[in-house]
């Protein structure tokens, strides 16, 4: 039975059939939420995604694959997560502790030798999460998908519901903003 048939069954009143959709797509949705929100909150956002999908199942027209429709909901949930945490953007970099400061200071200024070792340290993840949290939710999403995940711009445009040119412009601007944040971090 394909996804569209399961959706039809759920809409006809067989609520338990929704479990098949959750089982089939939970790993993929978790991989998306893991990349867009902190790891310890990924399961919570994935859970909200499926509950929201159930509430809005009547709006699924079957024109695109169910997983694309579900991905769009997951991305919106991720953006909502960051909107809800807008206050955390006010956290100053110094609050991350001396470990983060030392990590920044150890970044070489000539060749990129040894960057792998730097990237493997836990401070890198903490600093990246902090720097990304300084961006607006949509900037963060589009930058993660285009620049960091390397997804095709046309896919990003479909998931975000944007035109291709808007994705290009927003992605470029978001990267510039991230570099501004990182630059200020280096200057501190």
């Amino acid at each position, binding site marked *: 039975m394909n996804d569209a048939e399961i959706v039809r069954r759920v809409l006809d009143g067989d609520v338990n059939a929704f479990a098949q959709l959750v089982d089939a797509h939970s790993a993929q949705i978790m991989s998306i939420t*893991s*990349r867009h929100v902190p790891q310890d909150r990924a399961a919570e956002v994935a859970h909200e995604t499926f509950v929201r999908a159930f509430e809005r199942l009547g709006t699924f027209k079957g024109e695109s694959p169910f997983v694309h429709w579900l991905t769009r909901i997951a991305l919106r949930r991720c953006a909502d997560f960051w909107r809800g945490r807008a206050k955390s953007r006010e956290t100053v970099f110094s609050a991350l502790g001396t470990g983060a400061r030392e990590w920044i200071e150890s970044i070489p200024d000539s060749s990129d030798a040894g960057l792998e070792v730097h*990237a493997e340290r836990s401070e890198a993840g903490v600093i990246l999460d902090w720097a990304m949290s300084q961006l607006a939710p949509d900037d963060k999403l589009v930058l993660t998908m285009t620049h*960091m995940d390397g997804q095709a711009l046309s896919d990003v445009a479909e998931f975000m519901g944007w035109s291709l040119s808007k994705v290009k412009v927003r992605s470029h601007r978001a990267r510039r903003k991230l570099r501004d944040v990182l630059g200020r971090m280096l*200057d501190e």
Partner: protein
Amino acid sequence: MDDRRLDNLEQALLRSFRARQSAPVPANFTASVMREVRQKAERGASFLDVFSLVARRFAPVGALAATAVCGYAQFMDKVFNQAVLSLSMHSTAGITLAGLMP
């Protein structure tokens, strides 16, 4: 700010991101989602039950009230038209109406 150092910082963070593992799906994930989904379905169903019960109970009264209001409005419309016609045909009313004219 040193551009080379900034590039290196960006590259290190990018590699850190790409090395991240996806969080595993919790063991009871489907069960917890379905628990909430069933609650929502039951709440939705109970709302529809109450709504249809109230609608069935009050539909005759509502229809009767709507008919009465429409009938009353039509009746009052006729009375008002009749009054305007009578006034305009009556002599004093004619004077009054003529006095209002420029």
